[in-house]
């Protein structure tokens, strides 16, 4: 469905050329959910904005991103607009920035349909009502006539999802869609995305820094660090038997309910690197407990492992093939 290959994103800044995404390749099958995890600054959002053609002018993008064989990168704004919204749509962490403040939410959804599907305004509004119901907004008729600021954060996120669904896209990209929400509302939105994926056969790319969010939805997981993929595989393989020390460390740093509260959280020391000054060799080496001399000089390539990929000189559970160490 969506094939991203050798994607690279760089910015020209006063401090020179800064690469924020390198060698990024990922494929998403029909009806599949791929989760992309990593800390802030890992390049998750930049990679997907590049695919959507939404990066600012100063950005330099190379590589390829094909939607059912058709290239998305390097299109003029007009041609891309046909795709955007119609066949591939994106939702963001903060719906307020993506919604128009002075327009009723019903009209915003209808407008998408008027523009992309040439519906009349009245047909567009009717469809908007159906869409609000599809994302389980209670009292949809009333909400239709409200402005974004009159809605709660969770409700706005539902409106944004309704808008993204308007043209029945083949692929929905969700960038930290629940990060700003309460756990309860987060669970509701994730349940909604799971339902939409199941009932509409939609492909889903879910970006998050929370492995718990990924675990409920993703069929496959890709882990990014410092602009590169460091691990990829089925959700079960990556979350239950991670091969990359960074993935392991991310899992360990999560507060868990099933260990005694007297046990310290295992934080990852240091912080994600500045893309302007990446460490030599493996970018994770200053924070990695397994780092050896080789790690400080040579960058590990992404290599196949069983049914996934890992970029590490000393992957966990190396000898065991399919079976990595279980926690």
């Amino acid at each position, binding site marked *: 469905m969506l094939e991203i290959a050798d994607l690279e994103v760089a910015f020209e800044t006063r401090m020179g050329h800064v690469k924020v995404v390198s060698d990024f390749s990922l494929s998403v099958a029909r009806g599949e959910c791929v989760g992309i995890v990593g800390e802030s600054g890992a390049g998750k959002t930049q990679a997907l904005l590049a695919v959507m053609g939404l990066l600012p002018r100063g950005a330099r993008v190379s590589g390829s991103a094909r939607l059912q064989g058709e290239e998305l990168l390097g299109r003029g704004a007009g041609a891309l607009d046909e795709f955007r919204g119609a066949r591939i749509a994106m939702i963001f962490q903060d719906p307020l920035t993506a919604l128009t403040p002075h327009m009723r939410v019903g009209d915003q959804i209808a407008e998408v349909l008027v523009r992309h599907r040439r519906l009349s305004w009245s047909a567009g509004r009717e469809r908007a009502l159906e869409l609000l119901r599809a994302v389980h907004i209670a009292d949809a008729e009333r909400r239709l006539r409200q402005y974004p600021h009159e809605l709660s954060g969770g409700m706005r996120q539902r409106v944004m999802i309704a808008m993204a669904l308007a043209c029945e896209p083949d692929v929905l990209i969700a960038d930290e869609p629940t990060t700003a929400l309460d756990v*309860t509302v987060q669970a*509701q939105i994730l349940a909604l995305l799971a339902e939409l994926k199941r009932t509409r056969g939609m492909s889903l790319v879910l970006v998050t820094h*929370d492995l*718990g969010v990924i675990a409920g939805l993703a069929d496959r997981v890709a882990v990014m660090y410092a602009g590169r993929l460091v691990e990829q595989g089925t959700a079960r393989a990556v*979350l239950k038997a991670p091969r990359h020390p960074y993935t392991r460390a991310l899992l360990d740093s999560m507060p868990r309910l099933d260990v005694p509260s007297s046990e310290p959280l295992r934080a990852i020391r240091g*912080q994600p690197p500045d893309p302007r000054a990446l460490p030599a060799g493996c970018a994770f080496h200053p924070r990695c407990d397994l780092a050896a001399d080789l790690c400080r000089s040579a960058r590990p390539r992404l290599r196949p492992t069983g049914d996934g990929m890992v970029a590490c000189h000393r992957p966990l559970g190396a000898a065991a093939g399919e079976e990595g160490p279980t926690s």
Partner: protein
Amino acid sequence: MTNALLRVVGLRVRFAAGRGASVHALDGVDLELREGEALGVVGESGCGKSTLVRAILQLVRPTSGTVVWLGRALDEMPARELRSARRDLQIVFQDPLASLDPRMTVGEIVAEPLRIHRPDLNAEARRREVHQMLARVGLPPDAAARYPHQFSGGQCQRIGIARAMILRPKLLVCDEPVSALDVSVQAQIIELLHDLKRECGTALLFVSHNLAVVRRLCERLLVLYLGRMMELGPTDAIYADPRHPYTRALLEAIPVPDPDVQPARLSHVLPGEPPSPLSPPSGCVFRTRCPHAVEVCARQVPSWETDSAGRGIACVRWREIGPESA
């Protein structure tokens, strides 16, 4: 009772909401914090967590009720005593960068409480204290001469903690101190707070909407909903046996990074969102979302029941619901 560091008694905060209407941001909160103890306050957005913090810090005036600090009501304290209470009562905010003055160096920021409350220290002694504190919270030695914007979110939070802890306060209030941070950095900050609390004997009032985070730091937990207390008690007891339907719902909503478990957790999520505090439901305020609500819940405000193990709950049905029926 007398050795309580902080007591909150019958606290109500009402905000005018125009056209004669009012928002009951807090409606009857009673709690007590002993020296060195950590209390977590959890609940969804708008449940009154920040209002509680602001009322304790005297940043909003309660409509009724009092905040008692070391046996004295804060709103009746003479200016001099209030000053010394302020010194012992410090806060760390949610947004690390926004809470630091961008024109001051990190050294100046961390030294400021010393300048105000410890006039006995000379510049050299102050500098020494600041450097020790910066090292203690894990910042590099050259941090003192730099400005906040040169630091990441996690590091800014360390700066905020250094500023709050430099006077070794008796109580540190944290309002969502890690919710803006990445998971890996969250864990660092939680562990730092955990260690500082133990070393300095500082009590902690830790506000969060993340129950998994609270569990590591707090011996006791308070669950708020729409400005009311739902459940209170020892953290381990509440996690092992949550009695209030709302507490259960909050715990069940925490995402677990296990693909064999998490999809099923998503299939029974708490529906809806908190109703408007302008017109709270009659009876039990949680009843519009509660899976166990019955007719009596709409008629009767649940009374606050306590037991000998220090647990408290406001639910008319908690005994019949039984453990974890879901």
